[in-house]
């Protein structure tokens, strides 16, 4: 009876959120799952229920798995690059005596701007400014095929994505660093630790929870990467820089417009991300508890 009363009052408070959530997220997601089991092409008025055959086809779709591989590569590089840079900036700026606020403000700025807009701005840099510098200022190391060579296109994508993400992570790290008691740092220095040891053995364990959050964030947003690549290389040359989200988008809206099949692919992506996220959170939490 007590439970019933608690539940009733709970429902009273939860219902508004539940309604909008149910109508605009859950229901579409579930009906999307239904389309994943049809051969619907997105235009026809009729379609046939095909069971799991779309999922079986996904397993054999080499373009899809190539894009998954590319996405993994992207995510791994992004997790390292953005977190290392963000942490480095956070530590350096946190120890400044002057202009702390100024640098914090500047580095966070790109995060405020839409990636579509940022992507266009960078496109201008990569297709116009770089070559101008190479041709007129003799900076020939910039004379690379920034969009056309899969190797350099990957670098270009990482640069732009890092540019957009680093500020956000940096802010979180800075907040965590502020939470480290000054007494601890001083004690370490008195014990004769050099700054590197001080950071590794004293500070880093204290900001582990921030690392967990930032890695979770980069992983999750990394697996769904779309905007940056779309506005920079369009997935090209060919499919060399195609992320999974792009592969799905293309399947649903280009070529054979196989919407049902595309939804099957996105279900697979969801499953992959879910598993990895669970593993990551478990592992990190364990580490945090050990520390």
């Amino acid at each position, binding site marked *: 009876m007590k439970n019933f009363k608690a539940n009733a009052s709970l429902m009273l408070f939860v219902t508004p959120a539940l309604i909008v959530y149910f109508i605009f997220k859950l229901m579409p997601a579930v009906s999307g799952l239904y389309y994943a089991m049809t051969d619907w092409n997105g235009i026809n008025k009729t379609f046939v229920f095909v069971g799991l055959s779309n999922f079986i086809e996904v397993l054999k779709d080499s373009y899809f798995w190539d894009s998954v591989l590319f996405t993994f590569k992207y995510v791994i590089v992004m997790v390292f690059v953005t977190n290392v840079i963000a942490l480095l900036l956070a530590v350096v700026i946190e120890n400044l005596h002057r202009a702390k606020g100024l640098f914090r403000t500047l580095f966070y700025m790109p995060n405020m701007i839409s990636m579509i807009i940022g992507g266009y701005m960078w496109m201008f840099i990569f297709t116009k400014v770089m070559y101008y510098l190479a041709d007129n200022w003799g900076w020939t190391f910039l004379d690379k095929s920034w969009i*056309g060579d899969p190797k350099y296109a990957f670098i270009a994508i990482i640069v732009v994505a890092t540019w957009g993400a680093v500020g956000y992570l940096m802010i979180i790290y800075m907040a965590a660093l502020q939470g480290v008691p000054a007494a601890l740092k001083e004690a370490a220095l008195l014990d004769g630790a050099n700054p590197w040891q001080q950071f590794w053995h004293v500070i880093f364990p204290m900001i582990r929870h921030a690392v967990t959050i930032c890695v979770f964030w980069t992983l999750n947003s990394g697996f769904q990467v779309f905007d940056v690549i779309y506005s920079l290389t369009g997935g090209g040359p060919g499919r060399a820089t195609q992320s999974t989200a792009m592969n799905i988008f293309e399947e649903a809206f280009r070529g054979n417009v196989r919407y049902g099949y595309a939804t099957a692919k996105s279900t697979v992506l969801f499953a992959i991300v879910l598993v990895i996220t669970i593993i990551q959170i478990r592992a990190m939490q364990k580490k945090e508890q050990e520390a």
Partner: protein
Amino acid sequence: MKKFLVLSLIVCLVLSLVACSNDAVSDPTETTEVGSTESPRVAELNIMMSIPQYMDQWDTYVKQFEAKMLAEENIKVKVNLEMPSSDQYESVLQARLTGGDAPDLYTLHSNNIATYDKAGNLTDLSAEPLADKIYDNVRETVSIEGRLLGVPLESQAWGVLYNKEIFAAAGVEIPKTLDDLKNITEVLKEKGYTPFMLAYQEQWVPQLMTALTLGGKVSGEIPDWVDRMYADNGSYEEVIDIFGPIDLIMANGTDRAMEMGSESGAAEFAMGKAAMFVQGTWASGTIMTTNPDMKLGVFALPVNNNEACTLVNLSTSTTLAVHPDAKEMDLALKFANYVLDDQDSAGLFQACSFNPLATVHNYEPASWVADASAFVAEGKAYKDLVLPSAVTDEQGKLLQEYYVKTITKEDFVKRMDEVFKSSNK
């Protein structure tokens, strides 16, 4: 901190009030404008188009249509013209169609007519007055079994664009065979010109090379190839010739092709950076605004040394269709007819620099259009091959890869055969 919260809450509340009252307030002011004796019928027409670069021209035309309807039919039409950028056009259109919320009129590529027809998204316009105005060879490109399924907007004969001044300065003539083209390339290089403009950043641009070479090869030598491909009974191996010109073009083009967008490519071509550009006449707008003095010409791209394969492509890209579920079918048809209106259509088509395609288009075509039309008049033209759009897309992708040398000719043939087969399913 508190100030910030309070302030933002107030702003939100005020704005949401504004948002709610907006719709209610705006209506009465609109109706007061009407003062005629018999109040006109009010109607709405939704039009979606994929050509935002001509937004201004169509806005004007729509206004003319609204005025005409009010004056002649006493209908107060409100036309909602939606023009998403071409990147997102298909996804938006598709969302609308699947949602059962199709626009009354919408544009599509004529190659997709069969697919959209099968899905029941097109209205037969054969009985409309506009039908008789369209030139026969254009009408064919937007018809299935004699049923006219759309109003052609952009129709063109196209091949390779070239800079007539550079050709004259180098003393070369337009090619008839692949050997001619090789010759021209050599001469141009000797004289210090870059032969070809390459702009491969967007996948549809390299795709144009396959469109032209496949069309020429197939129409000139193996006319049953497309049908056989649809029947899983053919291969790209048979049309391997297409790499003759493709290799030549790729080897003798401008640098940084993958970093060059189609529009920048057109602009640079206009400034004389290269002598030839495999690009349709639709690029003429950008070219002529960049360099109004440009002497632009068109020739047919040779595929091999068989002159019968050297043909220009006759195609209709943007086509305006009427959706069968249009709420105001009568008005939708009126608009479709108005696009080829006896008085106003020529002005519109000229303003958008579209090619004349109907009897009402009595304006002088641009010189490059005349060039291409000369090929058509001599019978050196073919109707654009209708390939599944997955195949067309794939060709563009693979040519990008071929250009950056991540695949070989053999890979191209193998992968294209696979893609064609899988879209036949």
